[in-house]
Protein backbone atom coordinates (compact mmCIF):
# COMPACT_ATOMS: atom_id res chain seq x y z
CA UNK A 1 0.00 0.00 0.00
CA UNK A 2 1.33 3.43 -0.90
CA UNK A 3 -0.08 6.72 0.29
CA UNK A 4 0.88 9.84 -1.60
CA UNK A 5 0.09 13.51 -1.06
CA UNK A 6 -0.14 15.44 -4.30
CA UNK A 7 -0.29 19.22 -4.59
CA UNK A 8 -1.13 20.55 -8.01
CA UNK A 9 -2.46 23.77 -9.51
CA UNK A 10 -5.58 22.36 -11.13
CA UNK A 11 -7.43 25.46 -12.23
CA UNK A 12 -6.23 28.83 -13.55
CA UNK A 13 -8.80 31.45 -14.46
CA UNK A 14 -8.08 34.79 -16.13
CA UNK A 15 -10.64 37.52 -15.50
CA UNK A 16 -11.41 40.37 -17.84
CA UNK A 17 -9.51 42.89 -15.71
CA UNK A 18 -6.39 40.68 -15.68
CA UNK A 19 -6.82 39.08 -12.26
CA UNK A 20 -5.60 35.49 -12.37
CA UNK A 21 -7.45 33.16 -10.02
CA UNK A 22 -5.46 30.09 -9.03
CA UNK A 23 -6.79 26.94 -7.40
CA UNK A 24 -4.42 24.47 -5.81
CA UNK A 25 -5.69 20.96 -5.16
CA UNK A 26 -4.22 18.79 -2.44
CA UNK A 27 -4.95 15.12 -3.02
CA UNK A 28 -4.36 12.03 -0.92
CA UNK A 29 -3.89 9.04 -3.21
CA UNK A 30 -3.67 5.40 -2.14
CA UNK A 31 -2.36 2.97 -4.74
CA UNK A 32 -3.50 5.29 -7.50
CA UNK A 33 -6.98 5.79 -6.03
CA UNK A 34 -7.83 9.27 -4.82
CA UNK A 35 -9.09 9.19 -1.24
CA UNK A 36 -9.60 12.89 -0.65
CA UNK A 37 -9.10 16.28 -2.21
CA UNK A 38 -9.15 19.81 -0.82
CA UNK A 39 -8.81 23.21 -2.50
CA UNK A 40 -6.77 26.29 -1.71
CA UNK A 41 -7.28 29.56 -3.60
CA UNK A 42 -5.45 32.79 -4.27
CA UNK A 43 -5.66 35.66 -6.73
CA UNK A 44 -2.77 37.26 -8.60
CA UNK A 45 -3.84 40.77 -9.54
CA UNK A 46 -2.14 42.89 -12.21
CA UNK A 47 0.85 44.46 -10.52
CA UNK A 48 1.29 41.66 -7.99
CA UNK A 49 4.61 39.82 -7.78
CA UNK A 50 4.12 36.44 -9.45
CA UNK A 51 7.73 35.25 -9.38
CA UNK A 52 6.93 32.60 -6.78
CA UNK A 53 3.94 31.18 -8.62
CA UNK A 54 3.61 27.86 -10.42
CA UNK A 55 5.39 27.93 -13.80
CA UNK A 56 2.10 27.88 -15.73
CA UNK A 57 0.72 30.74 -13.64
CA UNK A 58 3.90 32.70 -14.25
CA UNK A 59 3.54 32.16 -17.99
CA UNK A 60 -0.06 33.32 -17.96
CA UNK A 61 0.72 36.34 -15.81
CA UNK A 62 3.62 37.25 -18.07
CA UNK A 63 1.28 37.16 -21.05
CA UNK A 64 -1.66 38.96 -19.48
CA UNK A 65 -0.14 41.42 -17.03
CA UNK A 66 1.05 43.82 -19.66
CA UNK A 67 1.87 47.41 -18.82
CA UNK A 68 -1.49 48.46 -20.24
CA UNK A 69 -3.42 45.93 -18.15
CA UNK A 70 -1.56 46.90 -15.00
CA UNK A 71 -2.15 50.59 -15.65
CA UNK A 72 -5.85 50.01 -16.27
CA UNK A 73 -6.17 47.94 -13.10
CA UNK A 74 -4.35 50.55 -11.04
CA UNK A 75 -6.59 53.25 -12.46
CA UNK A 76 -9.68 51.26 -11.50
CA UNK A 77 -8.30 50.72 -8.02
CA UNK A 78 -7.52 54.38 -7.51
CA UNK A 79 -10.99 55.32 -8.70
CA UNK A 80 -12.40 53.17 -5.91
CA UNK A 81 -10.00 54.40 -3.24
CA UNK A 82 -12.34 57.08 -1.97
CA UNK A 83 -14.23 55.78 1.05
CA UNK A 84 -17.69 54.76 0.01
CA UNK A 85 -20.10 51.94 -0.44
Amino acid at each position, binding site marked *: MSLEKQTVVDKIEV*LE*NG*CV*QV*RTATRIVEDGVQLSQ*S*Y*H*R*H*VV*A*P*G*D*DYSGEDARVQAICAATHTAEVIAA*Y*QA*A*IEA*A*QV*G*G*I
Partner: protein
Amino acid sequence: MSIVLDGTTGITTPDVSVTAQSSDIVTSGNIEAVNATLSGGVYVGGTAAANLLDDYEEGTWTVYAYDAASGGTAAATTTTGSYTKIGNIVRMWLQLTNIDTTGMSAGNYMFISLPFATNSISSVGQAVLNNTSYNGRTNPYAYVPASYSRCRLQVQAESTTIDIVEVGWLTSGTTDIYVNMTYEV
Protein backbone atom coordinates in the same frame (compact mmCIF):
# COMPACT_ATOMS: atom_id res chain seq x y z
CA MET B 1 -44.36 -0.99 -21.22
CA SER B 2 -42.11 -2.29 -18.51
CA ILE B 3 -38.78 -3.99 -18.34
CA VAL B 4 -38.66 -7.33 -16.55
CA LEU B 5 -35.40 -8.90 -15.46
CA ASP B 6 -35.36 -12.20 -13.65
CA GLY B 7 -39.10 -11.89 -13.07
CA THR B 8 -38.85 -8.46 -11.44
CA THR B 9 -40.42 -5.41 -13.00
CA GLY B 10 -37.92 -2.59 -13.26
CA ILE B 11 -34.20 -2.67 -13.58
CA THR B 12 -32.74 -4.04 -10.38
CA THR B 13 -29.68 -5.91 -11.54
CA PRO B 14 -27.17 -5.77 -13.01
CA ASP B 15 -25.99 -2.13 -12.75
CA VAL B 16 -26.94 -0.05 -15.73
CA SER B 17 -24.24 1.97 -17.45
CA VAL B 18 -25.39 5.00 -19.41
CA THR B 19 -21.96 6.35 -20.23
CA ALA B 20 -22.76 6.09 -23.94
CA GLN B 21 -26.12 7.83 -23.52
CA SER B 22 -26.18 10.74 -25.95
CA SER B 23 -29.78 11.89 -25.57
CA ASP B 24 -31.60 13.27 -22.53
CA ILE B 25 -32.73 10.91 -19.79
CA VAL B 26 -36.30 11.87 -18.92
CA THR B 27 -38.32 10.64 -15.98
CA SER B 28 -41.58 11.75 -14.37
CA GLY B 29 -40.39 10.28 -11.08
CA ASN B 30 -37.52 11.08 -8.78
CA ILE B 31 -33.86 10.35 -9.27
CA GLU B 32 -32.14 8.93 -6.21
CA ALA B 33 -28.45 8.32 -5.91
CA VAL B 34 -25.60 8.54 -3.44
CA ASN B 35 -23.53 11.00 -5.46
CA ALA B 36 -23.91 12.65 -8.85
CA THR B 37 -21.03 14.09 -10.85
CA LEU B 38 -21.99 16.79 -13.34
CA SER B 39 -19.51 18.39 -15.69
CA GLY B 40 -22.11 21.03 -16.45
CA GLY B 41 -24.68 22.01 -13.88
CA VAL B 42 -28.24 21.58 -12.74
CA TYR B 43 -31.26 23.74 -13.55
CA VAL B 44 -33.41 24.48 -10.52
CA GLY B 45 -36.89 25.95 -10.87
CA GLY B 46 -36.65 26.58 -14.60
CA THR B 47 -34.48 26.18 -17.65
CA ALA B 48 -33.23 29.73 -18.10
CA ALA B 49 -29.57 30.61 -17.69
CA ALA B 50 -30.53 32.26 -14.40
CA ASN B 51 -31.71 28.86 -13.11
CA LEU B 52 -28.42 27.07 -13.77
CA LEU B 53 -26.31 26.17 -10.77
CA ASP B 54 -22.99 25.41 -12.41
CA ASP B 55 -20.44 25.58 -9.62
CA TYR B 56 -19.99 24.61 -6.01
CA GLU B 57 -16.69 24.61 -4.17
CA GLU B 58 -15.39 24.63 -0.61
CA GLY B 59 -11.84 25.52 0.22
CA THR B 60 -9.31 27.74 1.95
CA TRP B 61 -7.02 30.58 1.03
CA THR B 62 -4.02 32.24 2.61
CA VAL B 63 -5.03 35.53 4.19
CA TYR B 64 -2.56 38.39 3.85
CA ALA B 65 -2.87 41.97 5.06
CA TYR B 66 -1.31 44.43 2.60
CA ASP B 67 -0.58 48.12 2.56
CA ALA B 68 -1.85 48.46 -1.02
CA ALA B 69 -4.77 47.34 -3.15
CA SER B 70 -2.34 45.70 -5.58
CA GLY B 71 1.22 44.64 -4.93
CA GLY B 72 2.52 46.39 -1.81
CA THR B 73 4.02 44.97 1.35
CA ALA B 74 2.32 42.13 3.19
CA ALA B 75 2.17 41.79 6.96
CA ALA B 76 4.32 39.04 8.39
CA THR B 77 1.24 37.53 9.98
CA THR B 78 -0.85 35.25 7.79
CA THR B 79 -3.61 32.81 8.42
CA THR B 80 -5.94 30.50 6.55
CA GLY B 81 -9.45 31.63 5.69
CA SER B 82 -12.31 29.47 4.52
CA TYR B 83 -14.78 29.97 1.71
CA THR B 84 -17.76 28.35 0.05
CA LYS B 85 -18.63 29.24 -3.52
CA ILE B 86 -22.17 28.56 -4.71
CA GLY B 87 -22.76 29.65 -8.27
CA ASN B 88 -21.64 33.28 -8.45
CA ILE B 89 -21.78 33.81 -4.67
CA VAL B 90 -18.78 33.47 -2.37
CA ARG B 91 -19.17 33.33 1.38
CA MET B 92 -15.87 33.78 3.17
CA TRP B 93 -14.56 33.91 6.72
CA LEU B 94 -11.16 35.07 7.88
CA GLN B 95 -9.41 35.70 11.16
CA LEU B 96 -6.11 37.55 11.41
CA THR B 97 -4.71 37.75 14.93
CA ASN B 98 -1.76 39.64 16.41
CA ILE B 99 -1.00 41.26 13.05
CA ASP B 100 2.64 42.23 12.72
CA THR B 101 2.78 45.34 10.50
CA THR B 102 6.56 45.68 10.50
CA GLY B 103 7.75 47.03 7.15
CA MET B 104 4.32 48.19 6.01
CA SER B 105 3.60 51.85 5.22
CA ALA B 106 1.66 53.28 8.16
CA GLY B 107 -0.11 55.95 6.10
CA ASN B 108 -1.45 53.53 3.51
CA TYR B 109 -4.87 51.95 3.52
CA MET B 110 -4.89 48.34 4.65
CA PHE B 111 -6.20 45.60 2.36
CA ILE B 112 -6.84 41.89 2.90
CA SER B 113 -6.52 39.19 0.26
CA LEU B 114 -9.63 37.37 -0.99
CA PRO B 115 -10.08 33.87 -2.47
CA PHE B 116 -11.80 35.27 -5.58
CA ALA B 117 -11.92 38.71 -7.18
CA THR B 118 -15.30 40.45 -7.16
CA ASN B 119 -17.33 41.00 -10.29
CA SER B 120 -18.79 44.39 -11.18
CA ILE B 121 -20.76 44.59 -7.93
CA SER B 122 -19.19 45.86 -4.73
CA SER B 123 -20.08 44.25 -1.39
CA VAL B 124 -20.12 44.95 2.31
CA GLY B 125 -19.51 42.47 5.11
CA GLN B 126 -19.19 42.18 8.84
CA ALA B 127 -15.87 43.04 10.46
CA VAL B 128 -14.60 43.08 14.02
CA LEU B 129 -11.36 44.87 14.87
CA ASN B 130 -9.58 44.57 18.21
CA ASN B 131 -6.86 46.95 19.41
CA THR B 132 -7.36 49.26 16.45
CA SER B 133 -8.04 52.97 16.18
CA TYR B 134 -11.37 53.86 14.56
CA ASN B 135 -10.28 57.46 14.00
CA GLY B 136 -13.30 58.76 15.88
CA ARG B 137 -15.79 56.50 14.11
CA THR B 138 -17.62 53.60 15.66
CA ASN B 139 -18.87 51.12 13.09
CA PRO B 140 -16.28 48.99 11.30
CA TYR B 141 -17.17 46.88 8.29
CA ALA B 142 -15.45 45.16 5.39
CA TYR B 143 -15.87 46.58 1.92
CA VAL B 144 -14.75 45.24 -1.42
CA PRO B 145 -15.14 47.48 -4.47
CA ALA B 146 -16.06 46.04 -7.86
CA SER B 147 -13.35 44.02 -9.62
CA TYR B 148 -11.08 43.98 -6.58
CA SER B 149 -9.00 41.03 -5.41
CA ARG B 150 -8.63 42.47 -1.91
CA CYS B 151 -11.10 43.89 0.59
CA ARG B 152 -10.51 46.81 2.89
CA LEU B 153 -11.94 47.92 6.20
CA GLN B 154 -13.99 51.07 6.66
CA VAL B 155 -15.40 52.86 9.69
CA GLN B 156 -18.34 55.18 9.93
CA ALA B 157 -20.52 56.86 12.50
CA GLU B 158 -23.73 58.85 12.40
CA SER B 159 -23.32 62.14 10.53
CA THR B 160 -19.67 61.47 9.69
CA THR B 161 -17.94 60.65 6.47
CA ILE B 162 -16.65 57.16 5.75
CA ASP B 163 -13.02 56.54 6.58
CA ILE B 164 -10.79 53.72 5.38
CA VAL B 165 -8.66 51.92 7.96
CA GLU B 166 -4.98 52.66 7.54
CA VAL B 167 -2.07 50.43 8.49
CA GLY B 168 -1.00 52.95 11.13
CA TRP B 169 -4.29 52.56 12.96
CA LEU B 170 -3.37 49.00 13.85
CA THR B 171 -1.28 48.16 16.88
CA SER B 172 1.42 45.93 15.50
CA GLY B 173 1.52 42.56 17.17
CA THR B 174 -1.81 42.91 18.97
CA THR B 175 -4.49 43.88 16.45
CA ASP B 176 -7.00 41.19 15.53
CA ILE B 177 -9.35 41.33 12.55
CA TYR B 178 -12.32 39.09 11.82
CA VAL B 179 -14.31 39.34 8.59
CA ASN B 180 -17.41 37.47 7.44
CA MET B 181 -18.58 38.50 4.00
CA THR B 182 -20.65 37.36 1.05
CA TYR B 183 -19.95 38.77 -2.39
CA GLU B 184 -20.50 38.14 -6.11
CA VAL B 185 -17.89 36.85 -8.52
